[in-house]
């Protein structure tokens, strides 16, 4: 019996929220727009580094994209990782040519221009201590 009452209360709450939303929509107030927060146009024709869920890393020239963050890259090179430790990058790369990157698998995107490799800051801290 108790659970039935709470369910009814819950439904009432939902209905209140729905009413509120409808009222807001009437006054043309939308929530967050469905635009990407990153304008990929500024990276078009530049080299970008893309990291994937699962650890893959590639570098390529951005040629196109869509709202779901699928990308089109050209002259893509994948940086291969140490077979023993997937977190360690090797100097080896393989060429993949033209690639479509799947938005759902993207982890990070960063422009190569403006990036630099630095020495491991954690190792330096150990030595100091």
């Amino acid at each position, binding site marked *: 019996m108790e659970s039935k009452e709470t369910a009814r209360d819950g439904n009432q709450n939902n209905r209140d929220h729905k009413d509120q939303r409808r009222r807001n929509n009437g006054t043309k107030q939308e929530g967050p727009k469905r635009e990407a927060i990153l304008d990929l146009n500024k990276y078009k024709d530049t080299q970008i580094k893309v990291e*994937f869920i699962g650890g893959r890393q590639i570098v390529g020239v951005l040629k196109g994209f869509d709202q779901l963050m699928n990308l089109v890259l050209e002259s893509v090179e994948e940086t291969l990782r140490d077979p023993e430790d997937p977190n360690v990058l090797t100097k080896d790369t393989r060429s993949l040519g033209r690639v479509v990157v799947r938005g759902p698998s993207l982890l990070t995107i960063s422009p190569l221009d403006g990036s630099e490799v630095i020495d491991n800051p954690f190792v330096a801290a150990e030595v100091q201590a």
Partner: protein
Amino acid sequence: MAEVATNPSVDVTGKQEEVTISTVLPLEIIDKSIGKVVTVLLTTDKEFTGKLVGFDDFVNVVLEDVTETDSEGNTDGPVKIMLLNGGQIAMISSTED
């Protein structure tokens, strides 16, 4: 999913939409690769090389004459025809020029 393959809806602001039209759409590239040999790389260390026969909005992919390669370089196949689940796909690479 209509907004992905065709031009995005024209917005009153205009500025953003006109810029998107001039770039290459990823799904168009996949469409152009139908009939060609592609390599599909998964988020894991597996990859599948075969002829692209079709795909859908979720980029589930139908491939023909497929060789499956894993991290050690071991290959499996060739598999005559398969439907590869798009959920694990990281990249689709075509070697066309």
